[in-house]
């Protein structure tokens, strides 16, 4: 199933889903999903709106619990573990609607991403050395996504594109082992997309990347393997080339309907 990925040689599983389902009342948003992502892989998850991609992300990161099945991260069964536990294991993500801290500055936001995994979250005193170190790392992360000039600005006053930059800086600052990005390019200008693509291509190979993206140019350029979802289920997996050639994918994206495979 995943032989296509070149990173398979050191195939320590980063993510392993078995029979994962998520039900909202009568709606089965995610249905019996098996998914394996290995260390260092670049995986894109594609599919039309309502395919269950974001719900799957939420189940993986722990914002939602799985109704059925098991979620394993870095070889550990975390099905019953809260989101914060998974974050501390090294799983970072961004959200489709950026979900940022409007009332905090850019620097404070990135600072929180680091404190979240570093410990000392409840510390009610300022330890100058620690503060300096974390703030330094926060500024460095801001530099990586070219948002350094806005460090002191309130996040709520920034543009949409800048929100995306902040979200990615926050995810990177936590120095995650696995990074999940939910439509990072949506709403970005052409130039911003170019920058994003370069950033993703230049990402440390030790970081596993899982990407939901509607922009096929970006998704198929960055990803080495692609999982195609529809109606909550995985329908195709393969390399970008295989996906491009796949008729079902064409049907789905051209809107001719699915079901006559």
């Amino acid at each position, binding site marked *: 199933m995943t032989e296509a990925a070149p990173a398979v040689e050191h195939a320590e599983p980063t993510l392993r889903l078995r029979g994962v389902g998520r039900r909202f009342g009568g709606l089965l948003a995610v249905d019996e999903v098996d998914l394996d992502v290995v260390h260092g892989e670049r995986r894109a998850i594609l599919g039309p709106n309502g395919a269950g991609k974001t719900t799957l992300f939420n189940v993986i990161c722990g914002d939602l619990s799985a109704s059925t099945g098991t979620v394993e991260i870095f070889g550990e069964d975390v099905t019953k573990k809260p989101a914060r536990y998974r974050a501390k294991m090294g799983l970072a993500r961004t959200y489709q609607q950026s979900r940022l801290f409007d*009332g905090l500055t850019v620097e404070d936001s990135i600072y*929180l991403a680091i404190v979240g995994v570093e410990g000392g979250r409840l510390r*009610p005193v300022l330890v100058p050395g620690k503060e300096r170190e974390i703030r330094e790392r926060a500024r460095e992360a801001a530099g990586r996504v070219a948002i350094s000039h806005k460090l002191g600005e309130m996040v709520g006053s920034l543009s949409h594109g800048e929100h995306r930059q902040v979200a990615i800086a926050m995810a990177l600052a936590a120095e995650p082992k696995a990074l999940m990005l939910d439509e990072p390019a949506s709403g970005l200008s052409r130039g911003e997309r170019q920058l994003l693509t370069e950033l993703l291509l230049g990402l440390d190979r030790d970081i596993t990347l899982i990407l939901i993206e509607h922009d096929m140019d970006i998704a198929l350029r960055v990803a080495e393997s692609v999982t195609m979802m529809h109606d909550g289920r995985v329908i195709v997996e393969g390399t970008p080339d295989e996906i491009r050639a796949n008729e079902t994918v064409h049907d789905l994206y051209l809107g001719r309907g699915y079901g006559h495979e």
Partner: protein
Amino acid sequence: MTVDRTKLATERVIGVAALVVAVLAPTLFSAFWLNSILTQALILGIGAASLIFLSAYGGMISLAQTGLMGIAGYALANMVTQRVPGGETKGLLLGWDPTVGLVAAILLTVGIGLVFGAVASRSYGIYFLMLTLTYTVIAFLFVGSVTLIGGFSPVAGVDTYTPGFIGDIVTDRERLYYITLITAVFVYLLVRYLVRTPFGVSLQGIRDEPVRMASLGYNVALHRTIAFGIGAFIAALAGVLSAWWFGQLSPTTMGLDATIQMLVIAVIGGLRRIEGAWLGAIAFLMINNEITNRIPSSGLPVIGGTFNTVIGFIFLAIVIVSPDGLMGLWDRMWDALRRRGGPPHAEPEGGEPAAVASS
């Protein structure tokens, strides 16, 4: 940027001036003003600060603060007052050492606050508001119905059993004023410091996006619980001072009227900045004082009604004109200045149109 700096400098000057006036107050104001307006404003301000701390930095609007104040006062009153021959004081009359009683009352209130906070820590918005109102109602009914610790008649004489370092506050009201002032400055500095620490910045993150904070590795419920405990600590300080100021405790100190009054003070001052607590309290008491002096006891001309009518109108006007209270009005004034007089490159890409997403 320059406007922000001017604003900060102006606020510093005003803050220092206010502090100087506060320190010199006993020489500047009459004994009535000092005791009835300023001391009470500082105490109510500390109570409102516990509410505003939770709302401004934690996004939690709590109606439990008056309840917690009352709990601290009642705990203190029951612990320190003694049985006097021929006296008819209510309560347990434990007669503990006042210093022990003071510490124990504050610790007990913080403990109860942590329990309250833990139960409410997964609730947001209106549900949080209702739960915290329930806490105050529980406290009110508890002290009212358990005659052993008080009942509906007041527990008296708290102010005569103060620790040595507090001294005689019954005859020396100036002393009580300064104790209150020091506590208020302490609370203000405490909050200003806390919100810059990892705990405080995290709390603000939780205020804005609790779900995001959880996926960043934070235990949101624990964080909110501890914040509520800190709010309870501040409320306990206000409760103790209030008990000393009144000299006696009755359930009405944590009744619905007192709860609404605390909320009104916080809203008039502004729920988003801690300074609003004392601004709201002094405004509230001054309006109260003016109206009581000017309006005949028969009520306002034509429409009738008294203090509550006027404060109701003021409350309404503030909520409509400036939902963030007087502090919000102040902030908006500076925002307007920034837009008009700020440097031309202040916000060049303010309304950058988002590119159309391809899908």
